[in-house]
């Protein structure tokens, strides 16, 4: 029955509803109109209304007569209109503000991607100041802007500003991508700020690393911390992780750094007399950089320090670079005659070793063989600066000062002479025919 009544009521009211305006406010006004008409019949009430209107007119009248008053009235009217509109359209205004701030954030991001740092910072600052409703499609727009601002500040070297922006970031609810950025930036800012206790920084970094394994920035902070604390092994370990996680374009540099760190640690261990550790580091170096020279050089250094110069010479000989020759020369200076020349040539079958041989023979006073070795070296190597320098030294050792002087002069002259057409272009280092 009730349903039947409802259906009847709907049917009766339907034409009226169809005639009513669509806007709910106009409908309210329409509904209110009969009530007001009824109220108009009530004299006192009307009186009150009229008096109120008169009162208002009395206030407005003087204002309407002056320009300033009229201006004030226009301003007040416009403000009231705007306020009413905003109140009436508040949902849409909220939505529009959110979309607008998102649009501004996009502009800022575009400027950032387009390397327009100034414009990007300006726009992000406006986004970061925003306190209105957040856009549904990206509710973390303010935090993102704050993070970007912190990043820009760090890039510009303004650590305090960066910290300020980071401190304003509301963390709860942040997506993990932004969290990662925040942790990275905070670590970096704290590290650069320099007043934070290392323990605090380490704790932060380690917790960040637990959340984001393999994060190169966090690993870099941990590596720097370990280095500053003198914990070389740990630093090396972090650096190895960095190498594993680094972007391909950065990997060569990080790899180089890892090798340098291992090498430095090995040298430090050597100087400290910790030969076992140095040996381990040398092995590690050879694994980390199998084609490089530093591992073998360090192994050789360890052998040299442990008084096994022959083994050291063998290892240096395997290094196919001038550094290996340098070390052999050093070794022979410290341990003259420890290696037979024939052995040395077999262990280090490079043409450069002939120079070492010539010099060692000259030092040992074996003049004839020294001369012959010098001759062989000169023929094999040609008149390179090193060849000329060492041969001049050999000549001095053989007591032929004038020839040595002449050789040096000729080498210098060769550097000053313009190469002929058939000569190689890279003559600066290689010298010419002396």
């Amino acid at each position: 029955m009730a349903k039947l009544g409802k259906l009847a009521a709907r049917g009766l009211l339907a034409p009226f509803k169809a005639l009513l305006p669509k806007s709910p406010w106009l409908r309210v006004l329409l509904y209110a109109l009969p009530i007001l008409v009824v109220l108009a019949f009530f004299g006192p009430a009307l009186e009150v209304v009229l008096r109120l209107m008169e009162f208002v007119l009395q206030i407005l009248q003087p204002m309407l007569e002056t320009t300033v008053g009229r201006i004030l009235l226009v301003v007040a009217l416009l403000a009231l209109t705007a306020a009413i509109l905003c109140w009436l359209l508040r949902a849409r205004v909220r939505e529009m503000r959110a979309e607008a701030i998102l649009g501004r954030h996009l502009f800022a991001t575009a400027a950032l991607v387009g390397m327009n740092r100034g414009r990007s910072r300006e726009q992000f600052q406006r986004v970061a100041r925003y306190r209105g409703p957040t856009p549904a499609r990206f509710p973390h727009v303010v935090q993102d802007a704050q993070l970007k601002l912190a990043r820009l500040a760090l890039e510009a070297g303004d650590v305090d500003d960066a910290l300020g922006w980071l401190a304003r970031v509301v963390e709860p609810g942040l997506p993990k991508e932004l969290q990662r950025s925040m942790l990275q930036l905070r670590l970096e800012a704290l590290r650069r700020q320099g007043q934070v206790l290392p323990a605090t920084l380490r704790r932060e970094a380690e917790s960040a690393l637990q959340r984001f394994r393999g994060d190169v920035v966090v690993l870099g902070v941990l590596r720097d911390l370990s280095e500053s604390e003198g914990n070389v092994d740990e630093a090396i370990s972090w650096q190895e992780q960095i190498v594993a996680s680094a972007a391909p374009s950065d990997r060569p540099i990080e790899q180089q750094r890892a090798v340098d760190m291992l090498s430095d640690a090995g040298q430090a261990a050597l100087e400290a007399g910790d030969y076992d550790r140095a040996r381990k580091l040398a092995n590690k170096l050879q694994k980390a950089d199998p084609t490089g020279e530093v591992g073998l050089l360090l192994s050789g250094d360890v052998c040299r320090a442990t008084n096994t110069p022959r083994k050291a010479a063998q290892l240096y000989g395997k290094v196919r670079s001038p550094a290996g020759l340098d070390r052999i020369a050093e070794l022979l200076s410290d341990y003259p005659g420890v290696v037979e020349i024939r052995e040395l040539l077999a262990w280090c079958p490079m043409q450069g070793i002939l120079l070492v041989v010539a010099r060692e023979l000259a030092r040992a006073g074996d003049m004839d063989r020294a001369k012959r070795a010098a001759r062989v070296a000169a023929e094999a190597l040609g008149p390179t600066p090193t060849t000329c320098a060492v041969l001049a030294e050999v000549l001095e050792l053989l007591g032929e000062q004038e020839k040595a002087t002449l050789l040096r002069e000729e080498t210098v002259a060769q550097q000053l002479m313009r190469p002929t057409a058939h000569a190689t272009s890279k003559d600066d280092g290689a010298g010419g025919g002396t």
Partner: protein
Amino acid sequence: MTLALSLVGRQDPETGGETAASLWDHLVDVALAPGVVELALVLATVAGCIGTWWRLVSLVRNARDRAALGDYLLGVEQALQGDLAGAEKRLASVLEQDPENHYARLMLGKVLGDLGETERAHQQHLYLQKAFAVESGENELLMARSLLAAGLPAESAEVAEQAMERMPGNANGWGFLYRARLQQGEHKAAARAGRRLLPLLKSAEERRLWRSELARNYAEQGALAWRSGDVASAATAAKAAEALDDQHSSLPLLRARLTGSQHGVPATARQLANVARAGSPSGDASRLPKPVTARPPLRMETFAGLLEPARWVCRACGAPLDRELLQCRRCGVSSPAELVEPALTRSLESPAEAMDRIDVNAAHVGRLVDALRHGEASARDELVALGRAAIPALIDAGAKGDEVVRDMIVEVCHAMGAELLPAWFQARDQHSQRRFWGRGDGPDSVLSAALQRFGRDALPHVQEMMRSAASDHRTVFIDFFLGMGDLDAFQVVLERFPPIDILHRINRAPAPLLETFLHAIPRGHFLVESMLLEPTFYRDEALLAAARRAQDPEVFVEVMLRRGATRTLVGAAIDAIADDDMAPIAARLLEGLGDAVLEHCLAAYARPDVSDDARSRLARVLVRGGAAAAAHISDSFGPEPSRSDDELRALLVVIGDQAVGTLVTSYERSGWLEKVSAGLVSRYNNRRLQISLALGELGTAPAIAALRSLRRDEKDDNLRIHLDRALHLAKDRRG
């Protein structure tokens, strides 16, 4: 407006001032009219509202136009934080949903570049530029980066140049362009980019470093200009470099080169070398580099700071590197290290050989000798330098080798000097002791040739050695003295060695040596009697050869005639008659030797390979042989007629009447078959026919008489006919 009015007033201070004032009053009146200001306010407010609305709408539209917006923003953040894989994935998905999100594409390109996927990165940037017509400096710069990573520095630099036209304030861009140009080897273009970057750098330290870098660049430009001969440009570049950083390590070499161009290289080099030695510059050297006193173990010599103490350089930009880096810090090229002196690390082909060379042991000398045999000049020089140590191996090689090898070794011996001759003989003795079944001529031929090569220089040493000479050495010494052609010196040989030995050696001496010696023998010298006329002297051909160049050939002719017609001499003389120079002597000799050689001459005459000249000369010898020659000729006619019959007959005709008697005798001589056959075998043969013809052709009275006599006695009909014909021919000739 007020300003405008005041300007009007200034233009016409007398009348215009009033006009301006009235206009101003009028405007004030209008403004104060009711509703004007209010209307203006309302209009301004409405305009402001519209403007704000328009801006808001554009922002909103900007946001609403983008799909996958959250992913885009998070992708950008991931890219910034270094999560490249995550960023790539997210940005790629953004582009799938919103392909027109250019900034997402730009960022994706950047991320791909960082991931090392240069081709894909370049594709994204190319899409932006070409497909979407995005004119973005940043996009072009990233495209340039991908091109550089792909190993195309020239193309990269071009694109980067375009990008920097759009964004000249981008310091990173100029830095990138600088690196790209360096990788390309365009130092000038790089310097232009570097100059643009300099004012954009913020910190003083950065600017200082960059000035230093630019100084290197200008120094390199200067070096290039200097190499191409443009000294003026080199000087300009040097000045530019000095203005930027006058202490830069790359400048000393350029300065020194310019100084060298100005004052001469030798003087500058000497000065620099002195500076290096003295340790302090002086005078004009004040602008030259200071000496470097630090001496590394195996010195990378800088030569008074001229060179930079780096063993490695970047293969692209030429910057010195302290070791083998994975990436050049200056130009960014990967695996840049290149050794300044690559020869230092080049492999020794054979360490053992090198050591042998230093020790100069037998193996090394053996190798050198082998190399010498293959014609390597360096081996010769080294063998000469080795001297005494190389001699045994050379002797061994010479003993086994052919003539070419022997000549090479003789050259080496000569280059070593005569003072080492005793060592050569010593080595020869050692070799002889070892020698069992040797190949070749043995070492004596080498030593002999070597002594000849030395000539008179070897005389003191040879005389010294002869005092203790072993009998084995006689051969060499005799050869030496023979080759000297000095009879006074040869006296030593005569005094020391038995004549039989000397004669034996002379018989075996090489022809040139013997000839030289024979030339020296004057007429009437006792050696002629004591040696040349000895029956055991077998070198007649040497005598003949010596006569050729001798000042007095008659000495040898006389000796040869006295020695008589030996087989060797006759053969040599007949051979020599073909030689224009030797022909007179040979003819004279053959004629002088008489009948004994006529048969040999006739045999040579009949040889088909003899030249016409030689044949005519032999014919002359035969003709001079007269009746004896005619006898041999008439015996030379074969059983059947041949072509040579005519020539022989002609010879007989030339011999003339001397031959008639011999011919008749020869005609009448019967063979043994004729004698035993008792007339059964015909007398008619070619010999008799040719003799009859010869007599006919001769046509002299004795010849006719001989023909008649023969006709008369002849019983053979055929021969009679021929004799009749010859008689008619003779008569015709005579008639």
